[in-house]
């Protein structure tokens, strides 16, 4: 089962400049774990010390917010997960 994760520009640098990474998994959490296993540095950006998604990150499935099921929303072959981050600086 192939799922596409589209990464926010700030995260693309952490995966060698790729905008889209193909992963496998049955829900958003499994897909993110697959991404993090391949690119461990991304985990520090999107999760806190307890493994929870950082609150300035947003997960969308097929352009729709997965909140409050950011790490448990089911996905199927061909779905796209967007991982976006908030630019909090000013």
């Amino acid at each position, binding site marked *: 089962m192939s799922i596409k994760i589209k990464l*926010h*520009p*700030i995260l693309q*640098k952490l995966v060698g400049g790729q905008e889209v990474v193909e992963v496998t998994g049955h829900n958003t959490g499994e897909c993110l774990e697959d991404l993090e296993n391949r690119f461990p540095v991304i985990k520090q950006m999107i999760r*806190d010390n307890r493994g929870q998604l*950082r*609150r*300035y990150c*947003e997960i969308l499935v097929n*352009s*729709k*917010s997965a*909140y*409050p099921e950011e790490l448990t929303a089911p996905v199927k072959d061909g779905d796209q997960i967007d991982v*976006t*981050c*908030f*630019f*909090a*600086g*000013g």
Partner: protein
Amino acid sequence: MLTENDLSRYQRQILYPDLGEKGQEKLKQSHVVVAGLGGLGCAASLYLTCAGAGHVTLIDCDRVELSNLNRQVLHYEEDIGEKKPFSAARKLVKLNPAIEVTPVFTKITARNGRSIIKGANLVIDGMDNLKTRLIVNKACVAEGIPFIHGGVHGLFGEVTTIIPGRTPCLACIFPEFPNRELELPVFGATPALIAMLQVTEAIKLLAGFGSLLTGKMLYFDGDKMDFTFRNLVKNQNCRVCGAQRV
């Protein structure tokens, strides 16, 4: 009513047909709150003042530090230690004495958020953290005041215009307060660029012309020199503007 001085000062923008004297008069009658006087807020308030926004309120709770000066263009080395709203206001009134500038040295909280922005036509996001932005977003929704969000990180930036009741609000996208926020890298040029987009939105919104960045986020990637858009979707269960409003 525009004065002879106004007609002369703003002549080059009044030439723009969609603005004209009528639009300039609307700018003159407007009250804009700039929440935060860092890289975004300094640049935004500078150009709002140049453009003739009649009343600009400047809010920040910090004092000027040396490390601010790579991007906060209204604060000079001689201002280190000064309260940011007063440091900024001093320059703005020199730049355009016809503008009313109100400096407010205070921390924006859930308790004072609504009263600080009450009566404004528009709030510009010049803040440096998500938590205060969510407080101001909620206050803007409650008061029905448009909120032009901008944010930066290094060479990246984002902008969207939030119109309460019409567009998704910031809490539709980021529903929860962050636990802890990190100090972020910022170049001077990035907030300057994002602030100019915010001011462009502000002028159109106040004068009533053009298309706005409503319902979509504009992302700027200065590393690749790329602009992209993303459509924003209203969260029907949003605790700030949706069914679960509290």
